[in-house]
């Protein structure tokens, strides 16, 4: 490209695309899973299960686990994307789905899903059951 071309043709790429290492949905979910275990001192942990049996999309599921309750497990939400491209992805939570075309958008809607009344109620219910079990043991 000549200097003349650069002067005549502007940079048409979107400003919000930052060319640096990008987080995948799986990495973001695994990080949240690890944080939960640390924050709850192991009372609750989480795992991410990946299902790629379907050739059209890969699904990562974030599951809540209560080790003290015989490993009681409850899927919280899932993120789907095509096997080739992690974005756009679709976050499915409480029967609703939202599309994210970037890590930033995914983290935004993920934070809302993790803070939903249903998720809060589930976490508090499990903590109550864990406390009750500990007090009767």
């Amino acid at each position, binding site marked *: 490209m000549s200097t003349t071309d650069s002067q005549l043709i502007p940079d048409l790429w979107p400003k919000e695309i930052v060319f640096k290492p990008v987080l995948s949905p799986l990495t973001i979910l695994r990080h949240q899973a690890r944080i939960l275990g640390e924050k709850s001192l192991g009372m609750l942990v989480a795992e991410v*299960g990946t*299902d790629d*049996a379907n050739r059209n999309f890969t699904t990562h599921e974030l599951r809540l686990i209560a080790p003290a*309750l*015989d*490993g*009681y*497990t*409850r*899927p*919280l*939400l899932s993120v789907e994307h095509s096997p080739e491209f992690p974005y756009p992805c679709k976050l499915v939570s*409480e*029967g609703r789905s939202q599309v994210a075309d970037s890590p930033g958008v995914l983290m935004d809607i993920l934070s809302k899903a993790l803070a939903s009344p249903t998720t809060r109620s589930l976490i508090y*219910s499990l903590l109550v059951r864990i406390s009750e079990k500990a007090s009767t043991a």
Partner: protein
Amino acid sequence: MLNFLFWNLQRKSRDELVVQLAREHSADVICLAECEAISDELVAGLSSLGPATFAENRPYETGKVRVLSRFSDDNLHPVFDSPNGRMTIWRLWLPSTDVLLAVMHFQSKVVWEGDDQYEEMQAIARYIRETEARVEHSRTVVFGDFNMNPFERGMASSHGLHGVMTRQLALEGSRIVAGTEYPFLYNPMWGSLGDRTAGPAGSHYARISAPLSYFWNTFDQVLIRPALLDAFPGNVKIVDSIGDQSLIGDNGRIDSDFGSDHLPLFFSLDLMP
């Protein structure tokens, strides 16, 4: 013998019938779908049957299936709930073993197409396999209202529940399809279709105006993993009467005014030492 009852109550209060049903079948575990509430009268009525009292396990969480039993929460508790609450897997600890009870109230054909049911059943089957892997055994019984007949894809396909029609087939353990191994379940309900069986022609009746109507459906089923087949002598039946009252009307259809639009399901497992 441990005796199990499952009944979809169609959101009707049927406390007296449930108590009578439990008495006639010496029920140890009762699972109720479309049950609006567990009344004190129901728990008291069941407990009056003796010898052990009945209680609702996990009464503070109202899922799609309510579980009442003679077992304490320590001996019978949930280990998995599907995201929409339509399947819940319980672990039953007994003196000599433990088993998984996967109880289902699956999505209705009223709102879901057959393809939708099949896709969702693939997820359900995977959840069951993953829970079995977590507890490191497959002594599992899967039962409830599947809203599918035994011959439908979600029930019979390897990617679904993989319910086969003979005990001998199930004892082969598993089958490899396209390079992946899928465990079998024995589905004895294949033997309960139509009127050449000992019981009613199905567990649910619907006369629909579409070209294909089966009229009678066997939606309420029990399926057993090979690892638990020694404990399943074959005691399973769709219940069509309680006391001297038939749950089927004079017109040959289920009398939902008296009972529900589903018939109760009874089965036994020989698990006690």
